[in-house]
Each structure stands twice: as C-alpha cells, then as structure tokens.
C-alpha cells in the first residue's frame, strides 16, 4: 500500500488515498503496478451497476405493464384500447405482489410459541421451507443413487474394454430416452410419492455421470500411467492414486451436468407424482389461479438451483485445486 501513497511517480489521483487506506484496512495484498492498471475495488461499483442494470430495467418494465395503478394514470386512463392490451394482474401479477406472496409463502403459519420447539425451527416452519426441503431431499437422494451407480460402472467401463463391450450396447439404447419418458412406467412401478421421484432423478443423474466417467478414465494421459508404473504402481493402487485423480475433472463435469438434470427431474416428478415440494406447489397454485404464487414458486426453484450449482462449483474448485484450469483465486 505504501507504494501507492508514498511513490510520487505513481500517477494516482489524490482521491485514491481514501480507498487505499480502506483497502489496507481490509488487508489487501500490496498492489505493485498502480499507475496504469485500475485497482479492482475502484471500479467495483461500476461493475455492480452494469450487472444490475438489465435485471432492474426488466423488473421496472414488468411492474409498469402489470401494476393496476398504472392503468389509473391520467396519461393512460383515456386510452382504453391500450389498457386492454396490458395483461391483467390475474395473468401477470406485478413483482411487488409476487414479493408479498413470496414472503407470505415463506412465513411461519403459526405464531411462535416456546413449546413447539426452537425459534429457528419455527422460523423455517413455513410452507416454502417444507417444499424446498422436500425437493432438496429428493434431488440429493436421487443424485446419490444415480451417481453412486454410475461412478463405479463408469470406472469399470473406462478401465476395461471387456466390461465396456458388455455394457455399452445396452447403454447406447437406453441413453437417448429422456428421463421424463419414464414417468408413466415409474408411476406404474412405484406408485406415487418419493419412490418414483427418486427413480426419475437417479435416472437423470445416471447418464451424465456415467458417460463422463468413462471418457475421464479413457483419456488419462499415458505419461502418468508410464510414470506410475515406473515407480512401481500396479493394480488397485495405480487405479486409486493415479487413474481416479486424473479422471476427476471429467467426473466432476459429469456430476455437475448430472445434478442439473436431476434438478429438472425433481420438478417434473413432483408435478405428477407427489403432494409436496416446489414442483407440486406451483402446479397446485395453478389450480387456484394463483399466478403470484406460481411465480414465487418458480423463483424459489431458481434460487434452490442456484444454490446447488454454487455448491457444486465450490466442491469443484476444492477438489481440483491442483488443476491448471482451476480458478486462480484459490491458490493459497
């Protein structure tokens, strides 16, 4: 930091001092080349504004076309043809209404009382949390089943040509069938409830993990195998300490795609086979024409998906911290 403020040749404007002090309080690493390169925290507000501009504009537009109060505006009041073209709040509720509904949806239904249990439990006793938890549980269980079967099979198929020849034809036939197409069969086999959902979700996760695991093992660079065998690695150790880690970038890609497909499957499965969960909730809301609740549910689904993806991302960059492609920020 001293190099910023004390070095007269660094052509930083005087206003930087404040930010520099603030930055050194935040224990930023010393910046060296400050003269021409702009400091990352200097244009952070600008970047934030850029990334918020389009979403905010969309929200405003949405509010504008859907808010019933807008239709009372003097400018519009006398143009019934124009007003008739704007969607009704029934079809497209304004964002403020959706937000209100979303808060209502997430709020506890009962007032807090101590004998019901802890405060935190009460806080998350609303419908939304029940639904989100039910959906999350299904994705996790289904994913663990699907990936748990795909990973060992993929490792064997990748490592052994014989195993590959045995299983590949069947898998090639089954793979193009979208998991959604299994819905009728899954209900026939498992009835309603969690079981058909787990089945569909594990199917959805299975193929991406399998395919990527196979190519991960098959694409292990020969030089690693040679080096390992030169050092005396054979059999299981060779597999566990060399082939498996070398294949992890592929396997994790598969897992990430797999959890995405699993997430699609959970919503679909809930729409047809269960009576709770986020997917079920938005179908239910449609029957009552609660468009605000549908949208609130959709947003919840989006947030849950984002959470899952972020989690996978973290896991990825932790497990691949050795990888050249892994993000540079994680190397300390």
């Amino acid at each position, binding site marked *: 930091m001293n190099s910023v403020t004390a070095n007269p040749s660094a052509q930083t404007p005087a206003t930087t001092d404040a930010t520099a002090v603030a930055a050194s309080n935040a224990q930023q690493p010393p910046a060296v080349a400050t003269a021409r390169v702009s400091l990352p925290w200097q244009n952070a507000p600008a970047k934030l504004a850029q990334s918020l501009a389009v979403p905010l504009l969309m929200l405003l537009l949405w509010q504008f076309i859907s808010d019933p109060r807008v239709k009372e505006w003097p400018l519009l009041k006398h143009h019934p043809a124009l007003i008739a073209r704007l969607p009704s709040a029934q079809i497209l509720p304004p964002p403020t209404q959706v937000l209100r509904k979303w808060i209502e949806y997430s709020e506890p239904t009962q007032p807090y009382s101590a004998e019901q249990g802890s405060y935190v439990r009460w806080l998350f006793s609303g419908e939304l949390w029940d639904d989100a938890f039910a959906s999350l549980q299904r994705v996790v269980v289904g994913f663990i089943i699907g990936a748990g079967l795909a990973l060992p099979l993929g490792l064997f198929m990748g490592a052994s040509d014989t195993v590959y020849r045995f299983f590949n034809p069947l898998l090639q036939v089954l793979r193009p069938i979208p998991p959604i197409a299994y819905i009728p069969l899954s209900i026939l086999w498992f009835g309603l409830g969690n079981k058909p959902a787990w089945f569909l979700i594990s199917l959805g996760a299975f193929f991406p993990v399998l395919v990527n695991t196979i190519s991960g093992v098959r694409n292990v660079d020969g*030089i690693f195998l040679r080096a390992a065998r030169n050092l005396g690695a054979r059999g299981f150790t060779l597999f566990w300490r060399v082939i498996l880690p070398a294949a992890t970038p592929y396997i994790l890609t598969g897992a990430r795609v797999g959890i995405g497909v699993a997430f699609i499957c959970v919503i679909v499965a809930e729409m047809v086979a269960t009576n709770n969960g986020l997917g079920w909730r938005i179908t239910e809301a449609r029957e009552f024409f609660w468009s605000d609740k549908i949208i609130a549910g959709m947003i919840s689904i989006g947030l849950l998906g984002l959470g899952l993806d972020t989690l996978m991302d973290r896991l990825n960059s932790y497990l691949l911290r050795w990888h050249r492609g892994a993000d540079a920020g994680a190397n300390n």
Partner: protein
Amino acid sequence: MTTKRATPRIEVVGVQKVFRSRDGREVVQALRDINLEIFDGEFICILGPSGCGKSTLLNAIAGFSRPTAGRLVANGRVVTAPGPDRAMVFQEYALFPWMTVWDNVAFGLQLACKPKAEIRAKVDALLAKLALTDFRDRFPKDLSGGMKQRVAIARCLALDSPTLLMDEPFGALDALTRRSLQDELLRIWQDFRRTIVFVTHGIDESIYIADRIIVMTYRPGTIKQIVPITLPRPRDPSSPEFNAIERELTRLVMEEQLRHQKDEARATAGH
C-alpha cells in the same frame, strides 16, 4: 571401473524400433541395430541431435515400449515391463499434478511400502538437497520448469534403484543449477554405485559427467560411435583435453545434424 565387467547391467542386442502411423503408410525407423552393453556402475551418456531416437532407446530400456526386434536385458532379466529397478526421469517431467511436491517424491516409497518415518526422513532430505523444501506443499502447476525438473529428479532418486534412466533431466535448468546438480548426481553415482543412462544433447555436459558417450546417427537411429572419456574427475571444462574431446564430438554431432537438415530440405523439395 574395469574390475567387474563380467555381466553387463544392461544389454541391448540388435534392437530395432519402427513406428508406423495408424494407416500403416508412414513408417519411421527410429532405431536400427543397436548393440550396447552397459556395465555395473557405468555412467553412460546418449548424445545426438533432436529426433534421432534417444528417448525411444531409453523408453525401450525402461520397458515402456517393446522394440520391434532385438532383445533387452536389464538387471539380469529380460525387459518386459517398467519397474522401479529402472527409475526414470522423463523428458516431460510427468509429475502427478494432483499430488503436492512432497507426495510426488514420496509416492514411489509409499508404493514400496516403506515405513512412514523412513519415507518422511528420506523425502525431506531429498527436497532439502534439491532446494525444494519451501515448495513441498505446492502443486506442480505452481512450479517453474526448472523446479518441476528438480522434483522429477528427486522422485527418481528416492527410489534407490540400481539403474537410473534420465531423459534430458537438466534440460530446463539454468547453467549454474545445472552444474551443481551435475556434481550432485556424480556424487550420488559414486557414493551409491548406481548405473546411469543419461540422455542429453549437451556436448559439454556429456563430457563433464560420462564414462562413455554413445553418439547416435539420425534416421535411422544407430550408434555412430562410442567415445570413452578417461579424463580424471572432477573434470575441468576449460582444460585443453576437454576442449579437444568437445571439438571431436561437436564434429560428430554436426555431421548428423547436417544430414538431418539436408534430408529435410530434400523431403520438402520432393513434395
């Protein structure tokens, strides 16, 4: 050196290696009629222009690729597979990127099921010797080329194998580090009586370290000449004897280099 020459440690008899492209049309004869005996405790350098088959020969001795014809014997057994009795330093380093520096060096010892304390002591000592202690917990992606090369050397030395196969192990190092590692390698070689096959295209390097220098021809790779170096160690690269040998070797290698260039010129003209 001349006392125990009864059974060679490595025997290369009539070895040929032909690479064929997938469709079988393009054929590269990388090695032809290689006959070589390497004796216990010898320090051998293989010298030749780029692409003459040095790595191919070393890979064959290491057991990675079977020769098209001929026979290879190492440590009393016919070479059929790689093994830790012929520790190798790869030209491409071949460090495991998912292991830290420390784990890379320790891996071979762990595979040999050595006791933990022994592994720790040995790896720490090697890392210290190769000036890598500060980087013990780093992954290879964070290392410079020269550091990677030093890790590869440490990994190879950790094995304590009787034969060391080194494919341009000092190629990516600066001159000073190279000289100190050459001295270190000579010390290890003398102290532990290893047999070393060392591939290089550094002429002065080969004169500095080798007992015998195998000069190879370019396409097909054959042995052009075997030059014994009898100068007493430590050798002085500025001495007139050293320089005389260097001139002679430069001439031999240059001949091959020129032939190679002429070949290429003819090939491009023919197209």
